[in-house]
């Protein structure tokens, strides 16, 4: 695999291109938007090309600096990272497209573009990373760019939320880093595949697991340490909320997933059950909190808290292949749907001047496309067919049934019902008669359609998810096998 195959540099371009674009966007603010959009388009192409590559040729390793792990740093791409890269590109593209008109109606300066490009770079780098310490760096780059974007909303609460997010994130990163230190001094390597081979199940590994999981749980806003999320996701500018909820918050989970298959593959069942329980609690608690919010964006933010819970149901069910498949499809579906909902909420916010749910009926007639986007996104969040979330939930329940643990299945379904409750609490206002419509010029068509396109993708994801599902953890291949099948 060390031999260079044609086109295998896609992994490099996926990281370098957004970085370079960020520099250009910084230097030339006037073309920043164009650069960012062009980059996002290119990222989409590159991610698809990479996905095609790993589908055709199997998992793909790229040794940076030519040294190769464990001495150097390897990039690693498999279908899992491939599909996540694709969906990241899609969401970023739609969000940035949306942002062009959004920014024109706010005081947010052109620095938005380079920062969002850094965020995309960090995300791609994280998804392609195969090195425990490099993951730390990418996590930091991601967190800092996310914080920076949140702080763009020039508003007291947003700044406070950003600060909270930043501090929580630093503390979590440090816990993770300490974990990395322990792992390195146990196994002497940083490459995940190498760690998987050399890691022993010793107290240091236990501690590392505790530290890293706790850190990643904070960053990933798992209940009960979701404290920073509602504020940061709801007070941020709407396109930022979309990026955060759709992509950024999934990154720590992805890292945990990778670790779960590498150094912590030997973790006892109790750890998985514990994480699963927290996930189940997150589903219930997040949904209940969403149900009682008076503000739309807070509702959506709490919905994210709940939906993150589903991801963690993976851990108790990890033995079934369909659990990984389910969680992957779920991430895709949630990313698209949640981004759509936040973008739609942004439109309503822009038109109304606020996002109080009880006043939403005033925009209902003026913003049909926006509303449709929100509704479709909401339907996906509920997990109704044929959305990706439905497929994801289906596979999770299948895994639960396969392992005979029906409790998780009930949680999955109950979460869907709860989400229906809060989604329709909003949609109920769409059908209320009102005579005082507002001016809809705050949300031009481009913004509405960007949201709608994402929602539609989320809804139809289930229809074309089948080939993706087959890729993930295909027969005889699991993420572990990918990582350890590295040639020395």
């Amino acid at each position: 695999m060390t031999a260079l195959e044609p086109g295998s540099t896609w992994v490099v371009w996926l990281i370098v291109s957004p970085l370079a674009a960020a520099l250009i966007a910084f230097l030339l603010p006037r073309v920043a938007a164009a650069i960012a959009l062009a980059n996002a388009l290119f990222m989409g192409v590159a991610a698809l090309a990479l996905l095609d590559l790993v589908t055709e040729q199997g998992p793909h390793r790229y040794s940076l600096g030519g040294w190769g792990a464990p001495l150097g740093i390897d990039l690693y791409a498999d279908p899992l990272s491939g599909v996540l890269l694709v969906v990241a590109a899609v969401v970023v593209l739609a969000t940035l497209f949306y942002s062009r008109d959004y920014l024109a109606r706010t005081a947010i300066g052109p620095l938005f573009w380079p920062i969002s490009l850094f965020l995309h770079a960090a995300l791609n780098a994280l998804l392609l990373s195969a090195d425990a310490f490099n993951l730390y760096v990418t996590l930091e780059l991601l967190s800092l760019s996310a914080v920076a974007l949140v702080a763009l909303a020039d508003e007291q609460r947003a700044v406070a939320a950003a600060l909270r997010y930043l501090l929580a994130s630093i503390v979590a990163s440090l816990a993770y880093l300490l974990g990395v230190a322990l792992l390195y001094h146990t196994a002497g390597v940083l490459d995940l595949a190498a760690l998987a081979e050399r890691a022993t199940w010793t107290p240091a590994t236990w501690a590392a697991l505790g530290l890293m999981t706790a850190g990643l749980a904070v960053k990933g806003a798992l209940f009960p340490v979701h404290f920073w999320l509602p504020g940061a996701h709801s007070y941020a500018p709407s396109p930022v909320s979309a990026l955060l909820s759709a992509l950024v918050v999934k990154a720590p989970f992805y890292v945990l997933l990778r670790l779960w298959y590498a150094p912590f593959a030997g973790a006892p069942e109790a750890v998985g059950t514990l994480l699963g329980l927290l996930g189940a609690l997150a589903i219930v608690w997040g949904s209940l909190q969403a149900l009682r919010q008076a503000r739309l964006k807070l509702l959506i933010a709490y919905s994210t808290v709940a939906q993150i819970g589903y991801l963690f149901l993976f851990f108790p069910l990890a033995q079934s292949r369909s659990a990984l498949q389910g969680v992957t499809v779920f991430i895709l579906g949630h990313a698209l749907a949640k981004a759509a909902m936040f973008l739609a909420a942004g439109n309503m916010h822009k038109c109304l001047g606020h996002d109080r749910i009880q006043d939403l009926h005033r925009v209902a007639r003026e913003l049909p496309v926006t509303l449709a986007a929100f509704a479709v996104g909401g339907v996906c969040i509920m997990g109704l067919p044929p959305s990706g979330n439905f497929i994801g939930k289906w596979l999770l329940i299948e895994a639960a049934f396969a392992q005979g643990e029906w409790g998780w299945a009930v949680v999955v379904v109950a979460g869907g019902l709860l989400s229906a409750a809060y989604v329709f609490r909003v949609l109920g206002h769409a059908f209320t008669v009102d005579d005082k419509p507002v001016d809809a010029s705050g949300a031009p068509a481009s913004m509405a359609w960007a949201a709608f396109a994402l929602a539609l993708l989320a809804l139809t994801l289930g229809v074309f998810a089948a080939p993706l599902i087959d890729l993930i953890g295909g027969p005889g291949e699991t993420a572990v096998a990918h990582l350890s099948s590295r040639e020395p």
Partner: protein
Amino acid sequence: MLYSLAGIALFCIALRAVILATAPLRAILAVNVMSSGVFLVLVALARRTPGLVADPVPHAMVITGIVVAVSATAMAIVLTQRLRANVSAPTVEDTPGAGP
């Protein structure tokens, strides 16, 4: 080994300070101490056995870590300043997510 234990201690004491901090600046300072603890652990363990050459990889990690910590600290300080500065009046007067 002693240094690494000291690092852990630093980490833990600072963590407690972070938890109890109410003012952001205190928290920022504490976080920096925490990171020092982590770096101390990394570096101390790199030379576990006296006499042997220190492992350069943890050192490099520490340097990278320091840069990251500096960046984050700078951001945190500016954010704190922004928070204290009387920014534009809040436009959203609703109750936040937490609270009845």
